[in-house]
């Protein structure tokens, strides 16, 4: 039960073997999201975490969404979460926005970050 709960929470889907799924971008992105999942929820009904829910963040203005108290520096940074900005952010958030409260040391390479964006887009609410 706990295991199933963990899976649903962390990867947003039932457990399934990577062997069968093949190594496509979505799957790689799902794996890369393990590096985000402790701080960021991705399901609409997930409880809040240290960071904001990422479900509908892509393409939107940074730090403007409801339900999370963003750092002032990020609110004032005037960023929009397009692909290029997100890539820079994931690589080094503190360089893009000095003083950000996102504490993250990136270990994902460019291919993995690209796959992560594919996964994040796949999770977004249709709009």
């Amino acid at each position: 039960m706990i295991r199933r709960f963990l899976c649903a929470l962390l990867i947003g889907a039932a457990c399934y073997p990577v062997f069968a799924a093949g190594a496509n971008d979505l799957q790689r992105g799902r794996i890369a999201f393990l590096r985000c999942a402790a701080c960021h929820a991705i399901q609409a009904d997930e409880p809040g975490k240290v960071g904001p829910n990422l479900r509908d963040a892509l393409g939107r203005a940074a730090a403007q969404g409801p339900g999370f108290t963003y750092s002032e520096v990020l609110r004032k940074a005037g960023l929009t979460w397009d692909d290029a900005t997100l890539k820079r952010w994931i690589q080094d958030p503190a360089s893009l926005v000095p003083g950000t409260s996102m504490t993250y040391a990136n270990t994902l390479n460019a291919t993995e970050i690209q796959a992560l964006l594919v996964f994040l887009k796949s999770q977004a609410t249709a709009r």
Partner: protein
Amino acid sequence: MTHLQRRALLKTGAALVSTASFRPSWAAQDPDVVVLGAGLAGLNAALLLEQFGLRVRVLEASARIGGRLHTLEDVPGRPEAGGSQIGAAYARVVSTAQQLGLKLETSARSPLLKDDSLVYFINGQRLTRDEWARSADNPLPPALRGMTPERALGRLVGVSPLKNIAGWADPANFGYDVPVSGELKTQGLTSAALHLLEVNNGYGTTLADTSLLNLYYVQTNIGEVVKIKGPVQNIVGGNQRLPEAMAKALKGEVRLKSRATAVNAGAKGVTVQCADGARHQARFVVCALPLPAMRNIHFLPGLPDRHAEAVQQLAYAQVTQFHLEVVKPFWEAEGVSPYLWSDGPIERIFPQDEQGNGKAESLTVWINGAGTASWDALNDTDARERLTKELARIYPSSHGAVRLVRRVAWQQSPLAGGTWANWRPGQISRYAQALGVPHGRLHFAGEHTGRAIRGMEAAMESGERAATEILGLL
């Protein structure tokens, strides 16, 4: 054979070929991944790998799950001998605990632990904080006299120049990977001040073997942790409940008393040989052991030179603790707190006041670094005798008012070798990049391979990284 039968057979055959290509010589009972070490790092790697359908087996050398998380059940107040405070920024620790149904509670803030109640025992004299701040014997610079010397040391090295938490391992900052003693030379401190700054230094035994870069990492870490608003917490029932719950949530086995002695990696898989004669085969191994524990494992092929050197050389912090049951709160009669900072053999005392009501159930005597050696050399009887005598020098009415329940010396455990990686000058620049880099089918985790928040969170982060490395290969 009908067309349909042939199709069915071909389909089965294809499935078999497919299976064979993933597990060329694997028996059904063999795991995909063997994890060495049932601490937070290894267990987090194991949990994440299982979520993606991999079969995992965890081998733990000791008879206990948790590694350097160790709740002392037999000591009143149930102190933590290992990782203790869970900050709001410890996202992985907190979220995993919550997902496993564990409860977190705000750590009680004991009135006994207030800064202004701290008792100083320096040069054989007992002083209140205010008395110490005004004392003619206080050799610290005037602005720093009201604080403990280790806090003063933090002020003296200045504000961390690291621009982000990962900066400690960035070659651009390796110029700071020098002895802090050199940095302090320019500040005109007396030898008495320098000596005092060395006592209770948790990041080296002397100022000469304390890395300025490591202190900046610690300082940046504190800055990052406090950015996330929220209380310091602990897990109800003891922090060790977390690794225990993680182990329980695994489908695969956690095998205790299974100490690896050799790890042999080939083209098709890895064999782990254990001291009990058992052999475990897997496609990958996650080695989530502290480096001192790796010293007793033969790796074939051998680890890359720099990694192998780090296994032998990287310093680990030395911490000796004595846990004393309070039979009678002796300090009350003396009108002082049991919360102590000293330059003597008993370096610090922390009252364990689980309820936060000022009634300490036990006291933790905490000795750091160089000070541990003289205690560790004593047998239990001699250590108890010395402890009683030294405590009575500070608190005359303590005689007969406490009972020694536990003695913990992390550096004496061959499975830990100390409390945490304590990078000496030059060691971050020499080893930080080499640790945590996969070596063929071997992947590495453990707090010493963490990149961001230190301690328990670093352990969790490292397990997460090792798991994603393996999953990314499949």
